[in-house]
């Protein structure tokens, strides 16, 4: 199993001071952390590097977090996404969960809670990958969230 140091986290938030401070705190807790400040930057980032977990704000200039989540799940569904928002509605939460968001947290969130959620999300990502490998070994493989049985 990967060590904590190997968990790659991407923080996406337009509140620069907040996101940089949070990044520092997560790094002190042995996570590998990158930061970007809006949705398009996040989508650009995941084209080049695959984080394990993304912590995503909702209300950002340019592209709303829900749209960013939709795009991530369309193109890189294996990446786990935790929403961390200053003012998310019940509707936002419902939509985020429907799109495959891992969890929905409100600012200001406790660092221990956030860390626990990141670890849980990472664990789930690992388990999904292991399941996919197991299926592949049995002649079943996983593509874009669909498990398809290989023809005999």
């Amino acid at each position, binding site marked *: 199993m990967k060590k904590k140091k190997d968990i790659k986290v991407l923080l996406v938030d337009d*509140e620069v*001071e*907040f996101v940089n401070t949070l990044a520092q*705190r997560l790094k002190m807790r042995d996570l590998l952390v990158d930061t970007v400040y809006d949705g398009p930057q996040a989508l650009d980032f995941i084209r080049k590097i695959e984080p394990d977990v993304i912590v995503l704000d909702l209300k950002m*200039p340019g592209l709303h977090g829900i749209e960013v989540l939709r795009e991530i799940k369309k193109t890189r569904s294996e990446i786990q996404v935790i929403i961390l928002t*200053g*003012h998310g509605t019940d509707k936002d939460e419902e939509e985020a969960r429907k799109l495959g968001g891992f969890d929905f947290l*409100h*600012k*200001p969130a406790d660092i221990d809670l956030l860390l626990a959620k990141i670890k849980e999300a990472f664990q789930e990502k690992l388990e999904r990958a292991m399941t996919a490998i197991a299926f592949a070994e049995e002649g079943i493989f996983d593509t874009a969230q669909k498990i398809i049985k290989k023809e005999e």
Partner: protein
Amino acid sequence: MPDQKIAAQPSGNDTDSTMAVTMSLIIGRLISLFIHETNNHLATLRESGGLGDDIISAHNLSDKEKLKELEKLLTAMDDRIGHAASLVRTFGELGRHMENPEGQLDINKAIEGVMPFLSKIARQKNLKIRTSYGHKLPAADGNFTGLQCLILALFDNFCLGLDPLTTASITTDKTISSVVVSLSADHFAASDDAKQPWPSKPLETFAVASGFAVSKLQQGGEVTISIKRID
């Protein structure tokens, strides 16, 4: 496009009901902007305080570099508390004016009272904001809260038609007979949102019932919205 003056003059129960609904929508929007901004301040303060705690726990504090880092953090926290306190004060003043909506109408003061919320709206849409206040504008009795709510709602709608990085200008000036607030921008895009009838009927009713006339002037891509007190 010619100047589109508001013609609607509804009265009686319809007006009261439209006023109540519009006012509650505007107050809802204000609360939402306030909570979002406050939570951002609180979240930054929590992380900054937490980082300070982390640094103290993890390092020897005789390390000058770490002490400097802590000092910087404390200054940033103090600034952030200042911003949050100012936001709370502004919100409190809005509340106090809502309790007594009629009074001396100082247009510049009315705009300043909603400026943190206008700035937040602009920031969310990646717009720049510029203000230009006229000097020695005559004060008159009027609906201070009505004007603040109207400016907020009109600015919110106005921003829907602006492309990112556009500068939205807010200007106050006096005319021969009155004082005018103008919202203007030189790159007004006809987005789907902006194609809605503007200002909306309820907002027209709200403006008139609060004692103001709203007009829109569009020349090419340049748009100016003017709010004028009805004498």
